[in-house]
């Protein structure tokens, strides 16, 4: 049902004839020939990866490539900084950016839900019946949840009560509302799935933000971190120092907390080992995999969970002419699933796609850098940084030895830089 249906496809004959007419032109790579149609790039997902790729392909091709961005939302809402909405120091409006800033690059924007594609005919299908022909398709679909492992969250009703709020937007606001409505002395519990998941430091930052809010508004309330992992996955020393210092008596961390299921009616976790655990506000991050469009169209060729790519072009190793960015990827060693990383993927992919479609050289050397800031309270921030380079022998990205590192401790200067980072990366994607 969700995957591309060939019969439906054939019915929309008008769209096909357009696709057929343009597909060959793009393949030739002769975009500059007078009168010929420009090569077409269609991008799915207007997040850190997709919006960046759209802007940079339009900018770097100087109008030689026709760029279309398909996004389901009406505005971009940033996952980075969204924990501050839970803490109360930012509003959802503070972390939202309109897509209109991309118009000046000549990017066509389509609001809709991409459902599948025909890899032979090179056409993307949207849920509303729209068909978009492409020479290169770029998918930046983020993550979706592996709900089959948690039957208690199968219904939308259950997921509307026990929230994930792991895609910034209405759920972020809803979780904030649950926290403000919670009684003084209550318990907020967050369950963290086994890695890998989107934003490794994110759950721990969230615990800090909720603890900071409780200290001000509900000082007898507690934050309980139930981590399925053996240990804190990211910035361990820095987060532990906060929980044992500034948030001592507020935050409790427990490792190896695997769950069997969730009872949304009673806000209860069914633990694999030990007694059931009930919380006043329960926040469950289900196990994650590549976004639906990647999973449902055979691109998830790494443990049927993530997508493998060629790190020089970000082209799928499963389907030709389809490129994948961001959290859906089977990561290279020590490369986090972060918005910053997806933005960098978008630029390497943009350079490669422009080269491929204009007959230019695809670089055999690619580098990406990562910076992840985490807010401990409203102003004090810590970071983790890394630099990655392509290793031709291993055909993957490896970290550059000696580069990168962590903050020594939470500090105000990085609070300023983190907010500045957000403004610049949002502008780098969207204006």
């Amino acid at each position, binding site marked *: 049902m969700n995957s591309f249906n060939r019969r439906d496809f054939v019915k929309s004959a008008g769209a096909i004839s357009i696709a057929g007419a343009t597909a060959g032109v793009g393949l030739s790579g002769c975009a500059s020939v007078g009168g010929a149609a420009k090569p077409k790039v269609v991008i799915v997902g207007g997040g850190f990866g997709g919006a960046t790729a759209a802007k940079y392909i339009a900018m770097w091709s100087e109008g030689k490539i026709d760029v279309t961005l398909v996004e389901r939302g009406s505005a971009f809402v940033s996952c980075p900084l969204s924990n501050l909405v839970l803490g109360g120091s930012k509003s959802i409006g503070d972390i939202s950016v309109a897509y209109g800033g991309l118009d000046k690059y000549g990017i066509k924007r389509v609001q809709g839900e991409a459902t599948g594609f025909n890899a032979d005919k090179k056409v993307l299908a949207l849920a509303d019946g729209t068909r978009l022909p492409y020479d290169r398709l770029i998918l930046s679909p983020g993550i979706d949840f592996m709900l089959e492992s948690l039957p208690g969250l199968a219904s939308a009703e259950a997921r509307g009560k026990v929230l994930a709020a792991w895609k910034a937007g209405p759920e972020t606001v809803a979780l904030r509302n649950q926290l403000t409505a919670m009684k003084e002395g209550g318990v907020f519990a967050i369950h963290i799935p086994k890695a890998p998941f989107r934003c490794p430091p994110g759950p721990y930052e969230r615990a800090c933000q909720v603890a900071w809010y409780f200290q001000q508004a509900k000082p007898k309330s507690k934050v309980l971190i139930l981590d399925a992992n053996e240990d804190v996955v990211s910035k361990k020393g820095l987060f532990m120092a906060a929980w044992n210092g500034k948030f001592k008596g507020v935050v409790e961390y427990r490792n190896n907390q695997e769950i069997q299921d969730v009872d949304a009616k009673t806000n209860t976790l069914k633990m694999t080992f030990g007694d059931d655990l009930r919380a006043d506000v329960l926040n469950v991050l289900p196990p994650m995999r590549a976004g639906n469009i990647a999973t449902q169209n055979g691109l998830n060729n790494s443990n049927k969970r993530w997508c493998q790519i060629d790190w020089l072009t970000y082209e799928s190793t499963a389907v030709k002419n389809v490129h994948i960015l961001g959290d859906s990827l089977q990561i290279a060693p020590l490369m986090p699933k972060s918005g910053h990383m997806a933005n960098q993927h978008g630029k390497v992919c943009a350079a490669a796609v422009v080269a491929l479609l204009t007959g*230019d050289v695809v670089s055999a050397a690619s580098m990406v850098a990562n910076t992840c800031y985490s807010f401990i309270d409203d102003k004090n921030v810590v970071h983790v940084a890394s630099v990655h380079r392509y290793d031709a022998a291993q055909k993957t990205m490896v970290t550059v030895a000696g580069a*990168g590192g962590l903050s020594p401790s939470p500090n105000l200067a990085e609070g300023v830089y983190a907010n500045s980072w957000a403004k610049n990366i949002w502008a780098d994607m969207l204006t």
Partner: protein
Amino acid sequence: MHFQSRFRVRALALTLAGAMLAAAPSAFAQAPVSKHLARNLAAQCANCHGTNGNSVSDVPSLAGARAIDTIKKMTDYRDGKMPGTIMHQLAKGYSDEQIALMADFFSKQAK
């Protein structure tokens, strides 16, 4: 002393950038080097320093900065001569050649 070190950095930058660009096609015959290598490397900086080095926030812009100044800052961060919150860690990820290429790119960007 100050002049001398600046001169050395400038000479290094020009030599390296020139050598990199000139040698690239032959030295890396098996590994094609894009003529956009500098642009592609510099794009890594945009997340914090703005597209093409034009910052819209408190992080300094790099666009239009003299290459010699950018090279000096990056190498000082890298070599532990300048303290930083994050740049001293990131700078260690790049070679003299890469720093020179990025600095040259930013020096040519409109502010």
